[in-house]
């Protein structure tokens, strides 16, 4: 129950990385990893990722393809898709691929990400708690 929330960020833009990281990096409840290459990011998935933050523009694989891969390999991971584009098509592609939310990286983007990370954290903690309760129920019956 007291384990940290594992967050993986995939973004090859260093400035954007810093913007995303700033509000969460010093929070001890998060264990954060940052990746620039999609392959490294995907290889790390299996070690356990609670929240994945994925930019639309990466390398040979685009953000949408990466979200599909995440959902294939680690279904329970909550995915937040990012892009600088204010385009509904990108948002729809992300959601259809299995992302939970889509954020437009404008001047308020970092605030939105922080809010979503907090929301997702509550969801993850609530699920963990419920799982524990059910385990207890199995023990009792």
């Amino acid at each position, binding site marked *: 129950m007291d384990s940290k929330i594992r967050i993986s960020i995939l973004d090859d833009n260093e400035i954007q990385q810093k913007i995303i990281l700033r509000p969460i990096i010093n929070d001890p409840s998060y264990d954060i990893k940052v990746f620039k290459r999609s392959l490294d990011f995907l290889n790390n998935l299996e070690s356990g990722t609670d929240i994945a933050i994925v930019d639309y523009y990466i390398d040979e694989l685009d953000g949408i393809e990466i979200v599909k891969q995440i959902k294939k390999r680690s279904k329970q991971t909550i995915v937040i898709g990012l892009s600088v584009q204010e385009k509904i098509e990108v948002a729809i592609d992300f959601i259809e691929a299995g992302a939970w939310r889509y954020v*437009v990286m404008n001047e308020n983007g970092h605030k939105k990400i922080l809010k979503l990370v907090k929301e997702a954290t509550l969801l993850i903690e609530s699920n963990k708690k419920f799982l524990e309760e059910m385990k207890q129920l199995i023990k009792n019956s």
Partner: protein
Amino acid sequence: METKIKIFVVDDDPIYLLIASKSLQAIQEHEMTSFTSSEKFLKEMNESVDIVILDYNIDQLNGLDLTKIIHEKFPRTTIIGLSSQEDINVAADYIEYGAWRYIIKNKSSPRKIVDLVKEISIQILGSRQFSKEMNDLIRFKNIF
């Protein structure tokens, strides 16, 4: 954006839920309607209902039957199943049929219900906010 959470309760003895509703009042703006018959509930049920709380023993239909029906017809509504039994099979059935959570009815259940409604309300309001943002994106597209 609408911030009120709409809750339907089906329970022939909704005392725990009334206690929960009272303590919930201070935390989350909500509207709780309770039913003692499954027929009346199904007649009133619609997609604007955010949360449905179902007891196990109702009438000819039990909480599991209603969970199945609601989950199929209104997949966006969150279902919380109640039962007085400490039975993992009932819990597992509720979850399998589409309930989000299962609560055992006892003296701590009002508190439990308040906690769960608080938790899911954050998610519901988050989804509403997200839908609003997506609608804004569509509108943005139509302008340019």
